[in-house]
C-alpha cells in the first residue's frame, strides 16, 4: 500500500477514536441516572459515566490541541455532526435492559484496559500520561463489569437468558474494535498509538475466561459490523447526539 498517511491528521483521528468512544459510552451510561434497578447500581453507573466523561475531556482536549484550529474538548463534543464521530459502534448501542448495558460495558472494558496499558508505552508523553491516569480508573470498571456479567450469566434462569440475549445482540459489534485500518497502522508504526489488532489476544483471552465462568456462549461466525471509527454510524448515534448537543447547538457558547 502506497497511501501516505499524514501523521498529524492520523493523530487527531486516533485521539478522536479514543475520546469519542469514552464520550458516547459515558453519555449512554449516564442515561441510567435515576433509572437503575437499585440505588447502588444507579450510583455506580453514574460514577463510571463520570470517569468516562473525565477521560473524554483529556482525549478530546489533546485532539483539539493537536488539530490546532482552536477547538477545545467541548467544541469537539458538542459541535460536530454524527459523521465526524469516530467512536466504536458498540458504545452507541442503546442501553436496552440492565443486562445489555452491563454486557456492553464488559465487552468495552475488556478492550479499554489493555488498550490503555499499551498506550502507556506511547512515545508521545501526552498520550502516555492520559493512558496511565485513565488506566487506574478503568481497572475498577472492568473488575465490576466482569463480576456482574459472571453473577448474572451464572445466575437465575431469567438473568442467564437476558445476558445471553445481550451477548448475541452485541457480539457483531466487537470485530471492529480489534481490527486496524491504515490510520491505526501508521500511528502504531510511529510508536504513537497502539493498533487495535494488537489488543485482540488480551481481549479474547479475558472475554473467553469471563464468558466461560458466566456460562455464556459467544455466537459463532457472526457477521461483524464496522465503520464507526471512520464515521459510519447506526441511526442510534444521531438520536443520542440530538439529545446531548441540543443546548450547545441552540445556544452556542451559553454559560450559566
Amino acid at each position, binding site marked *: 500500500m502506497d497511501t501516505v498517511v499524514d501523521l498529524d491528521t492520523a493523530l487527531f483521528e486516533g485521539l478522536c477514536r479514543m475520546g469519542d468512544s469514552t464520550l458516547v459510552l459515558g453519555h449512554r451510561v449516564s442515561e441510567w441516572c435515576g433509572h437503575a434497578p437499585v440505588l447502588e*447500581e444507579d450510583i455506580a453507573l453514574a460514577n463510571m459515566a463520570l*470517569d468516562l*466523561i473525565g477521560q473524554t475531556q*483529556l482525549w478530546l482536549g489533546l485532539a483539539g490541541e493537536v488539530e490546532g484550529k482552536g477547538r477545545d474538548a467541548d467544541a469537539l463534543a458538542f459541535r460536530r455532526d454524527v459523521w465526524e464521530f469516530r467512536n466504536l459502534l458498540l458504545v452507541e448501542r442503546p442501553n436496552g435492559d440492565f443486562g445489555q448495558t452491563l454486557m456492553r460495558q464488559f465487552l468495552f472494558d475488556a478492550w479499554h484496559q489493555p488498550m490503555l496499558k499499551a498506550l502507556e508505552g506511547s512515545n508521545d508523553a501526552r498520550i502516555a500520561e492520559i493512558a496511565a*491516569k*485513565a488506566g*487506574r480508573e478503568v481497572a475498577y470498571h472492568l*473488575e465490576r463489569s466482569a463480576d456482574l456479567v459472571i453473577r448474572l450469566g451464572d445466575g437465575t434462569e431469567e438473568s442467564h437468558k437476558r445476558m445471553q440475549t445481550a451477548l448475541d445482540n452485541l457480539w457483531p459489534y466487537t470485530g471492529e474494535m480489534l481490527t486496524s485500518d491504515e490510520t491505526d497502522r501508521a500511528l502504531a508504526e510511529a510508536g504513537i498509538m497502539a493498533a487495535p489488532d494488537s489488543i485482540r489476544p488480551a481481549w479474547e483471552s479475558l472475554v473467553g475466561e*469471563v464468558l466461560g465462568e458466566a456460562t455464556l456462549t459467544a455466537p459463532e461466525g457472526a457477521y461483524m459490523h464496522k465503520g464507526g471509527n471512520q464515521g459510519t454510524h447506526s441511526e442510534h448515534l444521531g438520536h443520542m447526539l440530538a439529545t446531548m448537543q441540543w443546548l450547545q447547538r441552540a445556544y452556542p457558547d451559553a454559560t450559566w
Partner: protein
Amino acid sequence: MVSEAQVWDWLSEVPDPEIPVISVTDLGIVRDVSVEGETVVVTVTPTYSGCPATSVINFEIEKALRDQGVADVRLERQLDPPWTTDWLKPEAREKLRAYGIAPPIDGTRAEGVVEGRIKRLTGAALVVPCPHCGSEDTQKVSQFGSTPCKAAYQCRSCLEPFDYFKCI
C-alpha cells in the same frame, strides 16, 4: 514577596470540598508550589479524571491565596505521575476514619480481573475494617460509593453503612 513554605502552609488550610476534614495538601494533590516574581504558581493533579471537585478545588486554592493578599496566582495541571491514594498523608488517614470513611488499604488497587477473582475465591479478599466500630466483619455493597473514589460498604457487626476510600 511570599515564600514557598508560606504558600504550602496556607494551602494546608484549604479543605477538600467533598471531604472537608482533610486539606488539599493532606490529599496529596498539590504537586508543586513556586514563586516566580510576583506570581505564585501552584501545580495541582486531579484525583480522578472526571472528579467534579477538581474545578472547585482550583477555585478554593485561588481564593485562599487571594485572601492572603496574593494578587497573581497561576494554577497548572499535571497528570504525570498519576495521583494515587498512597499520597494521602498518614494523618489524613486518621482524619478520614474519624469522619466515618474507611481509609485506603495500601497495595490493594485493582490489578486485573483474574487476580481479583482468585483473591476473592480463595478468601484472600480485601478486609476493610468498619470506621465506626472497628469490626472486620464487613461487606462490599458496591464498587462505587458516593463518589468515584469510594466504594460502598456495610458493617455486619454494627450494621452501619460506610464509604471506603479505595486504592487507586
